[in-house]
């Protein structure tokens, strides 16, 4: 990074191909490019190992290859996540949670490559994902319970005189779900990448002593990879919990 460049410059969106549809600017940008990379990688990673269908009908068919084991790991991870939070009914929402988790996880991880772009560091993207989850869960709640879904805001076993105070709090906390969900992911990505860039600036500024921030950056990169996984996990598990709330109310 050149001296004096803002550490926020890495989040700038640069159009690659200008596209204009019905007066709307839907240019293919660096953000879209890394979404393409993420989508392609996930599809190849999880589909390719299972494309070769061995039909020898022997026991050796059942031995998974290395890539199959890796794909299986992701599959069973989300499977157990849904099983632990929602239970058996959660199987219907498996592909949604799986898609969300993998899209965010690999979006975060590809963002760790130097000179790449982290599309999850943009509030508009995370907000769109969180709003999608929020709308889906709310619709799901109304479809499953109808008007009874409003009883979700009434905590059972509470004295009646407390309700005027607590119902607004419950509603506000429900409505703030997409905001907290999106800001959590966005802020984590933003802060981590900015911190890395700031310390990278110190490396060249400090000369020979730049070795210290360099060591720090190496450690921080490890931490950022952990956070990349952790935030995808948090997003997925909160989605599972919201689905559980919509299915079982309390």
């Amino acid at each position, binding site marked *: 990074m050149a001296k004096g460049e803002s550490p*926020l*410059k890495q*989040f*700038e*969106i640069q*159009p690659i191909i200008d*596209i204009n549809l019905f007066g*709307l*600017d*839907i*240019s*293919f*940008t660096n*953000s*879209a490019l890394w*979404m*393409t990379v*993420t*989508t392609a990688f*996930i*599809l190849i990673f*999880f*589909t390719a190992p*299972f*494309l070769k269908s061995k039909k020898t009908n022997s*026991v050796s*068919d*059942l031995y*998974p290859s290395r890539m*199959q084991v890796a*794909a*299986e790991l992701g*599959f*069973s991870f989300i499977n157990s996540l849904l099983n632990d939070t929602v239970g058996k009914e959660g199987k219907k929402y*498996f*592909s*949604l949670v*799986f*898609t969300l988790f*993998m*899209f965010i996880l690999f979006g975060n991880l590809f963002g760790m490559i130097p000179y790449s772009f982290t*599309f999850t*560091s*943009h*509030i*508009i*993207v995370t907000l*769109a*994902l969180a709003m*999608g989850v929020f709308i889906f869960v709310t619709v799901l709640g109304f479809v499953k319970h109808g008007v009874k879904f409003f009883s979700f805001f009434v905590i059972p076993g509470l004295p009646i005189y407390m309700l005027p105070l607590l119902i607004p709090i419950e509603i506000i906390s429900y409505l703030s779900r997409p905001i907290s969900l999106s800001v959590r992911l*966005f802020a984590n990505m*933003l802060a981590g990448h900015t911190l890395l860039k700031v310390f990278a600036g110190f490396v060249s500024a400090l000369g020979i002593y730049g070795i210290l921030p360099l060591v720090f950056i190496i450690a921080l990169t490890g931490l950022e990879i952990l956070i990349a996984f952790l935030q995808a996990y948090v997003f997925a598990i909160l989605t599972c919990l919201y689905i559980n709330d919509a299915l079982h109310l309390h």
Partner: protein
Amino acid sequence: MPQLEQVEFFISQLFWLGVFFVILFSVLTYITLPKIRAFLNKRDDFVRSHISKQDELIKKAESIIENYEAKLTEAKNQASQIINDAKDKALQESETLIKATEEKIQQEIRQTEERVNKEKALAISELNVQLKDSATNFISKVTKIEKGNITI
């Protein structure tokens, strides 16, 4: 902060996010995940069938062992009975043999005694006869002498 300043790219970002999310979701839902699930189910079925087969085999082995043990105890009982029978029989036989032998011996003793007694009686009677004969002989001789005609 470009995230909030570059408002002109919001629609582009939302558009491409929607496009890629929908592509990813549909391909995963309709192609990838069923394939993975089928693969895992196949393996689970295989493992489950082998476990049930193994249970069956264990049951079979247990019944064979039970059968074998029952037969073994039966054979042992039979063997001990045979041995007891043989012992009893041998004891009985030896007892009867001893009794018979004793009786025989006693009989022989009696017979011998009888024979001895008979022979004794015979000998005595013979002796009596001889004595009588010699006595008459003696008497006749004596009477001849008395008549005076000694012919000796």
